[in-house]
């Protein structure tokens, strides 16, 4: 291996490590967001039952609405991740593999 090949390999490794760190930041950030939403809901169940029993309309309690919204929040976070992964992460990986970065 000559010097320039070594350089290329080293810069490839650096680019990959940077992207790896970025991926973990996004993943852990989204994980924490999901945990805050879900445990927020659980803590309300645990410590403020009357609030969740408040009726917003006949038949619709705050608890049922928030429960359904937790499921919707899971979908939204997954959508955010898929967008990021398809539009950014996959392209960066392809560039690194092609030796462009």
């Amino acid at each position, binding site marked *: 291996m000559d010097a320039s090949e070594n350089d290329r390999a080293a810069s490839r*490794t650096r680019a*990959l*490590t940077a*992207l*790896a760190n970025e*991926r*973990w930041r*996004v*993943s*852990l950030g*989204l*994980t924490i967001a*999901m*945990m805050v939403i*879900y*445990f927020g*809901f*659980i*803590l309300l*169940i*645990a*410590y403020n*039952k*009357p609030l*969740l*029993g408040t*009726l917003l*309309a*006949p*038949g*619709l*309690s705050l*608890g*049922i609405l928030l*429960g*359904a919204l*937790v*499921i919707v929040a*899971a*979908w939204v*976070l*997954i959508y955010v*991740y*898929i967008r990021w*992964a398809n539009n950014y992460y*996959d392209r960066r*990986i392809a560039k*690194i*593999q092609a030796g462009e970065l």
Partner: protein
Amino acid sequence: MSTTLGQFNPLAITFFFLFIAISLGVTYWAARQTKNTAHYYAAGGNISGWQNGLALSGDFMSAASFLGIAGLVSLNGFDGLIYSIGFLVGWPIVMFLIAEPLRNLGKYTFTDVVAYRLKQTPVRVASALGTLAVVSFYLIAQMVGAGNLIKLLFGLEYELAVVIVGGVMLAYVIFGGMIATTWVQIIKAVLLMAGTLLLAIIVLSKFGFNPIALFDAASVKYGATVLAPGKLVSDPLDAISLGMSLMLGTAGLPHILMRFYTVPNAKEARISVMYATVIIGIFYLLTFILGFGAMVLVGQDPIKAIDKGGNMAAPLLAEVLGGDAFLGFIAAVSFATILAVVAGLTLSGAAALSHDLWVNVVRRGHADETEQLKVARAATLLLGVLAIVLGIVFKGQNVAYMVGLAFAIAASANFPALLLSMLWRRFTTNGAVASILVGTIVSLVLIYLSPTVQVDILKHSAPIFPLKNPGLVSIPLSFAVGIIVSLLTTERAAADGFDEVEHRIHTGEVGWGRDEG
């Protein structure tokens, strides 16, 4: 109201045999495609993201979800929904942290990932123990559920029902391996979603297609308390402990993790979690309708009269809405639901025994394909027989509770080691083994010391450990032990291997068909 549940129902039996005939046909076809271990454990990596999304749904939505949650909601209202939501929120965690790296790093089991840059023997032995503990608890829940269900639906003896489920499942898994298991799970997911949707639409048609009108009818009939949190989660710490186990347990369930090896690459793994989360989320939203529908249209007393736990709420609702034919269809769907989950569980347990223990520990990675397949099938048979025995021994146990415990063990034994092995350069063999063993043992011991075992089963006056679910203690402890033991030991080879792990997590290069050893 009068019901034909528990009596001979020719339509139910017809649907039931139709499903078995079709699924055995699929197994015959799959058996002809199964030529090596990659086919047997991972369907050759030829399942598409969309197909795997359906199969993941079929693998995950167990009888505890369909019958158990509908029953809990019908009897407790809002409290039952806590389970619906908890079972779903694990999926984003699987998506963000686990699915793609797992697909790129491993071959057949999640242990492949943990053991990747660590010493094979200790990690594989510890991890196989963790896997088998989770699989056993989960199998008990499914087999006990199957026995009760078939007894109630078809009027068969409990023991005979358990043997039938075990026998049919063994036929799928031994001959058809992952290919048959995948298609049984796909067929089941479609049937379950169709049955649930149909039930929900008919229920909603009685309330002007307005779910809020349905909830209102429930609160008029049984009081506004059914729409608010109540006595099912009385202790705040218990609620948090159960929540932690449900959320992190999904990412440690061996039969779910194994499914990511059936797709060709990480991108398909990502797509499969997306479809699974959408399908499972819709399903759990529909359980709101089914549960409250059964509460209003069947009534709590008739549901409790058939089964105290409420597990027959969904079939009873089907009978009220569509008579014998609909009851028969929903009964057969429930049966298919259990079979598909049991098949996935058995296959993942067999992979731990044969791929992790036999091939990589006993034979040190040197076993030819014929031997590996033979051992895999023998391990499947062993686990199938074990499932039947456990189902009969644990007759009468609470199904949803056992599933909650399986999630707690998965979240404590498997999830911390799996995450740390992919994320942390300093993680060592000793750290991994300590984390897995402490997670498994502490969660089992705390379950034994919990109110459920000490007070409800052993009839002692007070429990030694106050929480019903061990997750709040065992999950952080497993992380802490893994980190501390790793910091106290140094393992150059493990740290040096991290660059390769990182490279492979992201590029997937040389990921497929890599020789273990």
